[in-house]
């Protein structure tokens, strides 16, 4: 058990050791200073010349969002049609069929929003062509989109008064060439050497010890697995995601994949400190996020190591903890760590079945996704955190008797309106979606869909409720992990979660960018002794309190009916 905990702690420490210098490097990249990746310059210049882009043109927040949304629209159309007609395209050695329109809609959106709500299985639902040129492509560019949006936020905070949030195209390309590609290449090689496939051959067949003949899917997976984590997308090459022995062969790759999904979100916090030259501000944010992460992680690991009380009642020994749904090569501690990391960071890749987690772990995973800002996804985590900051700034500004201000700009009605809308949206999407699903199950169990509502849930009662709640929470967080046990490949889930995904991706990017654009346009107010410092521990605690209260108030009743009821019933 101690070794298991040691593995978890080491993984986190190594993450920090890499993330800090990486943050420094990222700040240099976006400041335009000399870096070791300057050899990519010609590549970038070529891309800009071919696309007719002036990378130095300034953009205000509206132009920035317009550029971002239009290219995303284009990617969606491309992904949607390619997935539908993938059976007519090359690189399909297994002869997989094209996707149905509602599944293609869901899949295209899912990857467009840097999420992996896969209602298909990688072995049979997609081809090598769509895996590489649609899904992996989107895994790169959507991560870059999130980071570009975050750098725009930095630009707005950094300057006293400015209209220029930076050039979207420049940020998008540089993120890809300077950050994502180099790290991915290294990681993919490490994965390939540890047994993750990297070939274009079709299924192989082996004869097992039992003497059965088994078809084993393969493909160019190593690179895909690297970017799925680095870009916090989480979409698995195989249906079983990182629980699959080829996608995540051993403890080393598990550590590597954990580190990969955590480094950019953490590095971006440090990068902010260096980039806007407010290191203390960044450290306080890092502190708040880490404390938040630990609050979710410690109960999870404790309850997983403790084992299932229902099994204990049977008198069975569980020396290794709760092992249902877990891989023996990872064990409950690392799986618990993974389940929290993947939910706080909106990766959504899994190395164990969350459906089988203990009730408390399920509660923590849900909370992690509801908050969605403890580190959070590539770029978007800090954007989410920014909304909490605006609400915290407003309330605490009042409490110290000054019109609230953040980084020298007054926070007024318009900013509060936008922040409130972003916050309201997540509550509406999660609770509204879950309520709709619960309504269908309770009142229309026999609607003639591919899977009838009465057959959606593998588990009755509280756990069934958690499955539905989890699916919408995961969609809203752009996380993509599933509680599974949910019959989700049908028109209800494909369309409803598709809509949730797209709204929950773009509104929380548009909101913060609009706020920072509006704020940056206002007159700059220098700090005085009466100004509430936002880089203080006190303000950090205030933000933490806002995060806890806001989410508790929004979601407590739903959580009480799901994991909390399940937990108390198990005792």
């Amino acid at each position, binding site marked *: 058990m101690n070794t298991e905990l040691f593995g978890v702690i080491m993984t986190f420490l190594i993450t920090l050791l890499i993330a800090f210098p990486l943050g420094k490097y990222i700040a240099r990249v976006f400041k335009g200073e000399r870096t070791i990746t300057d050899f990519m310059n010609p590549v970038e210049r070529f891309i800009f010349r071919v696309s007719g882009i002036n990378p130095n043109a300034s953009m205000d927040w509206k132009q920035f969002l317009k550029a971002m949304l239009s290219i995303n629209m284009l990617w969606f159309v491309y992904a949607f049609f390619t997935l539908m007609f993938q059976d007519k395209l090359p690189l399909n050695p297994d002869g997989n069929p094209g996707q149905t329109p509602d599944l293609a809609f869901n899949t295209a959106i899912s990857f467009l929003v840097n999420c992996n709500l896969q209602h298909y299985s990688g072995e049979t639902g997609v081809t090598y062509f769509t895996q590489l040129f649609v899904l992996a492509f989107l895994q790169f560019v959507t991560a870059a989109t999130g980071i570009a949006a975050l750098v725009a936020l930095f630009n707005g905070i950094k300057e006293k008064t400015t209209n220029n949030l930076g050039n979207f195209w420049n940020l998008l390309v540089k993120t890809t060439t300077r950050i994502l590609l180099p790290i991915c290449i290294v990681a993919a090689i490490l994965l390939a050497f540890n047994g993750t496939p990297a070939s274009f051959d079709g299924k192989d067949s082996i004869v097992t010890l039992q003497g059965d003949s088994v078809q084993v899917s393969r493909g160019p997976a190593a690179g895909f697995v690297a970017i799925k984590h680095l870009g916090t997308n989480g979409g698995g090459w195989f249906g079983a995601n990182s629980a699959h022995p080829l996608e995540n062969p051993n403890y080393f790759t598990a550590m590597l994949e954990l580190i990969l999904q955590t480094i950019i979100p953490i590095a971006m916090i440090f990068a902010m400190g260096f980039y806007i030259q407010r290191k203390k501000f960044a450290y306080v944010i890092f502190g708040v996020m880490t404390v938040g992460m630990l609050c979710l992680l410690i109960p999870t690991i404790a309850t997983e190591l403790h084992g299932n009380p229902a099994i204990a009642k049977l008198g069975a020994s569980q020396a290794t903890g709760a092992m249902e749904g877990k891989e023996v090569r990872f064990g409950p501690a690392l799986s618990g760590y993974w389940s929290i990391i993947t939910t706080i960071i909106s990766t959504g890749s899994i190395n164990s079945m969350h459906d089988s987690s203990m009730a408390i772990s399920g509660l923590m995973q849900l909370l992690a996704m509801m908050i969605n800002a403890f580190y959070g996804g590539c770029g978007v985590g800090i954007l989410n955190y920014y909304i909490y900051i605006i609400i915290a700034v407003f309330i605490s500004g009042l409490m110290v008797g*000054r019109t609230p201000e953040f980084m020298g700009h007054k926070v007024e009605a318009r900013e509060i309106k936008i922040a409130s809308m972003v916050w309201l949206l997540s509550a509406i999407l999660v609770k509204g979606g879950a309520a709709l699903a619960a309504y269908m199950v309770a009142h229309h169990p026999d609607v003639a869909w591919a899977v009838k509502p009465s057959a959606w849930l593998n588990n009755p009662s509280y756990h069934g409720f958690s499955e539905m709640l989890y699916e919408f929470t995961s969609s809203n967080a752009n996380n993509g992990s599933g509680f599974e046990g949910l019959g989700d490949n049908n028109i209800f889930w494909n369309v409803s979660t598709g809509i949730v995904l797209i709204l929950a991706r773009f509104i929380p990017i548009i909101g913060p960018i609009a706020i920072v654009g509006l704020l940056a346009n206002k007159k700059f107010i220098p700090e005085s002794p009466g100004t509430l410092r936002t880089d203080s521990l006190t303000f950090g605690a205030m933000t933490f309190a806002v995060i806890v209260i806001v989410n508790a108030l929004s979601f407590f009743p739903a959580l009480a009916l799901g994991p909390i009821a399940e937990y108390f019933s198990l005792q």
Partner: protein
Amino acid sequence: MSKRKREIKLFEPALVNTAIKQSFIKLSPRLMVKNPVMFTVEVGTFVMLAVVIWQMITHDATQGALWYNIVVFAILFVTVLFANFAEALAEARGKAQAESLRKTREETPAKMVVSPGDIYVKEIKVVPSSQLRLNDRFVCETGDVIPMDGEIIEGIATIDESAITGESAPVIREAGGDKSSVTGGTKVLSDRIVVQVTTQPGETFLDKMIALVEGASRQKTPNEIALTILLAAFTLIFIIVCVTLKPFADYANTPITIAAFISLFVCLIPTTIGGLLSAIGIAGMDRALRANVISKSGKAVETAGDVDVLLLDKTGTITIGNRKATHFYPAKNVAESEFIDLVVYSSLADDTPEGKSIVELAAKQSSPNSTVDQFRHQKLSVQAAPLTFIKFTAETRSSGVDLPNGTKIRKGAFDAIRNLSMKAGNGMPLEVEDRVKKISSDGGTPLVVSVDNEIKGVIELQDIIKPGIQERFARLRKMGVKTVMVTGDNPLTAKYIAEKAGVDDFIAEAKPEDKMNYIRKEQATGKLVAMMGDGTNDAPALAQADVGVAMNSGTQAAKEAGNMVDLDNDPTKLIEVVEIGKQLLITRGTLTTFSIANDVAKYFAIVPALFIASIPALQHLNIMGLKSPESAILSAIIFNAIIIPMLIPLALKGVAYKPIGASALLRRNLLIYGVGGVIVPFIGIKLIDMLLGLFM
């Protein structure tokens, strides 16, 4: 100083009666809709009423017991009334405050000047003051009450302004210059003045102020709007929580009554702050009014809380009036008593404040039966004495007296007297020169006295810094406000006084445009500047400043330019205004925090109560150990209702502001109102539940 007491008791019976009446009138949905939080409570109350009526007709048993629904309805109804009462009470207090000012200007006869085209024929007609219009002229003579605000265009008069300021000493107002403004309701004590009306009836500052504390024309300030949006967002969140609870409950096979739904909803939405929000705003205006400051808008009071830079005139604010004599330094060969006599002679006819202070100091230091003493006891009359007084002129820069025996006593600036002495060949005593330098470097003003062009000694004049002013500036510094002293003194003197008084910066040898430039410079760096002024030449700066407080004695131009008027003409009033502004925001912030923190306990009361029947395991969430689902829900909504009137005193008086730095203040308020807001309802709800247990 005899300040008239304007304190009104918090729950003055007369005001409470009006407020109770008003709280029913305010039930009108048209008025309620302005407050989204309380409006939704009212809607919930109507729904409960419908449920009760429905149950009475159909005897439907699925919605719980009839008595229980009636009780829930009653509690919700009372909740709305409490919120209305808070607002009505604040309004009533504000109005009472304003009325006490307005009373002074009820119908008074006005002697209107009627000039039918011919300037030589002036006819005076007595009309009621309400008939006076803009630019009409009226005459006031000894004993008349001035019927309306206006500006003196002819004459000079002493006026008793105690009705407005509470200050009993009469003041002088005269045509032209900076002291030409008169206020309606004040009384002319002597002489005769002709006044021109400067405002339309119903548009005086006081009228504007009264409108501001009355609900009808009260506009929400930007900050209030932002907070209302945030509260509306919270309300929406809880609408979502309650609406989605229905399908969740259906899934869990738990029937939930309408009463339970509405109770949960009303408990969760921030009714505490929602009910008190407008009361807090009105109370802020009321506090300003009680400090005798008339604010032209609620926004001005809030802005005052944000002020970064405070421009203060030296004279009257930092120092007491004018310079005073503090020491006499006779030359080496001159006896002190002789010098004092000389000093007194030189200042007998000098009726400047400095001159008077010299005589005063001399009187203190002189021995009985000396010259001074004789003058003091009026044994020797100044007029009767055969003396020739020499007036101060800009050329000679000295003044003095010629005695009957031809002795010329002169008093004046150092170099002026030195020139006289040098010309006469009497030279300059070294110790006097040293003393002069010492006084100058200490920020004082030396006056040199000579007799027949021979230097006899030096008088030291010093600015007297107001007692306690250093502490006030230290307090302002802790609040993050920079203080700037504006003075006509030379930079050396200014610097000395600035250091002694503890101001952060000063503008020496200030001309009116210097103030303006300083304000612009600070504003360009994003700071908010407040200043106080009275003269017409202050008007542009008052308009430029973010918070401009005009003195009531000031000119009409100054009063129009500023956004507040101080009835007391007290230059230190700015400091109070800043604190009132801060207090207003803090009260809002802390009560919001308190209100939202309360929800934690309410969840723990109501959620288990809703589901306990179908999910017994949730009994573990009933950590308060409430008796039954019904008593849990009733306790929660009763607590929710009574917390509003319990917080009315806090809302009206305002949360105390302590200048301990922003982070420390946040910690303190988070601890009291955040953590306290989590804990208090747990205790309150448990107590109410125990009480209810006696009946249920």
